[in-house]
């Protein structure tokens, strides 16, 4: 059946399954992706159905995982790599930044390295250190990479399809705290462009820009605000590099107020770039400075404090109020 109601984790699993079925060059690799099906069960059942040769349990070495994936891509494969948690991508950072991101340009376009790096990211799951981070800006700043993140099951399915089909390396951030949120997935739909933002809710008074796990929070904020008479437009960015500034601009030209929300620390987070660029593009439209709600300049706190650290409904609405009060 083409339309199913699936949790995000399962939508990703289905997307991987589709990719493995339709393209023999697609590989899935990572720590514990085989029999265990990944620590989040995202790759559940894939090794059983596609064999150890295509769904590969790797040694515990992230640089090795990405580095060998690059080699396999050079050989014509399309590896989809899983990094177990956000905080464990850094041993692979060198391979991602100096090799994966630059190899196509280095070769003047003569080789392609279509590697997808899947990273469950973000907090809110009560985990220990290194399991709750949002390092997307550290990848988006680097030319040669594309960085995307779905917020719902349908996007999870389709954006991963598109990421795998892309000839560019794609860092695919998965909002782990939303893995079990269900949504409709139409596997025969015509998906939106991978790198375009979508309006998740229309509104007229203020624009909330978010992506991944924060879209849900922003939609809730919009609902609450609506009850209070404020009409909020929620934009789901979906892609952080490239970032759909046109869509943000269009919304802001209408609403004249912009608040950006992400879990990552505010300082040099993607909100900084959005604020800078939208202010440039909409200097005469903005009635208030772009406000940002995000993490603090502190290591991600222990789980018992994460609700204080993470942008929640109250902090988003506070920023909305401050923006509208200008």
């Amino acid at each position, binding site marked *: 059946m083409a339309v199913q109601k699936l949790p995000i984790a399962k939508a990703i699993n289905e997307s991987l399954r589709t990719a493995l079925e339709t393209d023999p060059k697609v590989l899935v690799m990572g720590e*514990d992706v085989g029999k265990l099906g990944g620590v989040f069960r995202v790759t559940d059942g894939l090794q059983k159905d596609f064999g150890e040769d295509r769904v590969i349990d790797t040694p*515990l070495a992230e640089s*090795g995982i990405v580095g060998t994936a690059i080699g396999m891509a050079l050989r014509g494969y399309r590896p989809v790599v899983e990094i177990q948690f956000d905080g464990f991508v850094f041993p692979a950072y060198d391979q991602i930044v100096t090799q994966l991101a630059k190899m196509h340009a280095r070769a003047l376009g003569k080789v392609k390295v279509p590697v997808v790096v899947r990273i469950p990211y973000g907090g809110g799951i009560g985990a*220990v250190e290194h399991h709750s981070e949002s390092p997307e800006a550290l990848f988006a700043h680097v030319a040669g990479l594309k960085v995307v993140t779905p917020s719902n099951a349908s996007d999870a399915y389709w954006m991963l399809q598109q990421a795998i089909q892309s000839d560019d390396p794609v860092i695919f951030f998965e909002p782990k705290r939303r893995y079990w949120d269900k949504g409709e997935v139409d596997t025969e739909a015509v998906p939106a462009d991978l790198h375009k933002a979508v309006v998740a809710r229309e509104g007229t008074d203020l624009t909330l820009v978010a992506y991944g796990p924060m879209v849900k929070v922003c939609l809730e904020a919009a609902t609450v605000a609506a009850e209070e008479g404020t009409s909020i437009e929620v934009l789901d960015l979906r892609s952080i590099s490239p970032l759909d500034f046109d869509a943000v601009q269009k919304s802001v030209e209408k609403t004249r107020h912009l608040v950006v929300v992400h879990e990552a620390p505010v300082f040099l987070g993607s909100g900084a770039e959005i604020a800078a660029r939208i202010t440039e593009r909409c200097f005469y439209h903005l009635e208030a400075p772009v406000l940002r709600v995000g993490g603090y300049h502190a290591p991600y706190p222990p789980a018992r404090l994460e609700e204080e650290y993470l942008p929640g409904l109250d902090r988003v609405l506070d920023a909305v109020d401050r923006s509208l009060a200008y």
Partner: protein
Amino acid sequence: MTVDSAASTGAARTPRKRTAASKTAKKSPGRTAAAKGKSDLVQLLTPEGERVKSTEYDTYVADITDDALRGLYRDMVMARRFDAEAVTLQRQGELGLWPSLLGQEAAQVGSARATRDDDYVFPTYREHGVAWCRGVEPENLLGMFRGVNNGGWDPNTNNFHLYTIVIGSQTLHATGYAMGIAKDGADSAVIAYFGDGASSQGDVAESFTFSAVYNAPVVFFCQNNQWAISEPTEKQTRVPLYQRAQGFGFPGVRVDGNDVLACLAVTRWALERARAGEGPTLVEAFTYRMGAHTTSDDPTKYRADEERVAWEAKDPILRLRAYLENHTDTGAEFFTDLETESETLGRRVREAVRGMQDPDRMAMFEHGYADGHALVDEERAQFAAYQASFAEEGA
């Protein structure tokens, strides 16, 4: 943290000068063995609890009296009891996660009791038994798994570094620390724990290189518990792990990780090499993770239960108990007293955890920097004002 200091906490640190034993370490046996690439498992106590003679390692445990053995036994039982309590606490929702050491008590207690107070220990996240022997308050280990902090003890109190979660990282810290010891001209040593999975990380290889090149006094203690979450050791290496060391120019030796006496002997030997200026050693403790990787894990997905059952026959605690019962005059009272003592520990830990307060929300702005940071100050102030605004509303 010598064997005799059976008291579990707060042992005073007593640095020692180079001993005669350490000076003779040069001619020690395992070194030659390793150089020969000997694949034997060092074992001093069979699974049935019979003492195996070892011309090579017996001298390293010659001082171990029956009392000392009982001390080791007690350590293992206490560690297991503590661990079981933590698993229960996790099930009850008091902890977010717990990585159980079940099955690895001998590897941890044996190696830890080989260390001196002035040695320094760099653990992974599973070294609860080592922490116990080092004198870390058991409840302090639970804070990070409850989510109230990321490391709840002062590493310098017991020379026991914080748990490190990013696999392999701590082996480099251990090496650097050992390089520092060498610079200081001290005769203490460092022990770095890591797992079979960790052996694949580039950092571990780099720590081998640095420690060899600088001849750093560090013992790499690899607990090969056969699994890295769901991956068996074959996904990390195709030869026994202890052999890894040779290619970096230092000895590696495999010890029965479920034999506390052998672990003690081999680690003492390796630490003495370190003290004697002979540089690093790799000890592979061949053991088994009897439980799940952590309380979040479901091992039925990837391993047959027979495997665990087979390893149960090699249980580290049972074999020492068999030895104590059959070859020493340890009375039944010792075991019942110990059970009482361990239950007391369980209760103490349970109560301590339940009484653990959530940190104040302002704590998240603390300790990011030692010398302060303007942005943190600004954000702290904004956050405080924001919180205060609710109070005002409420008022």
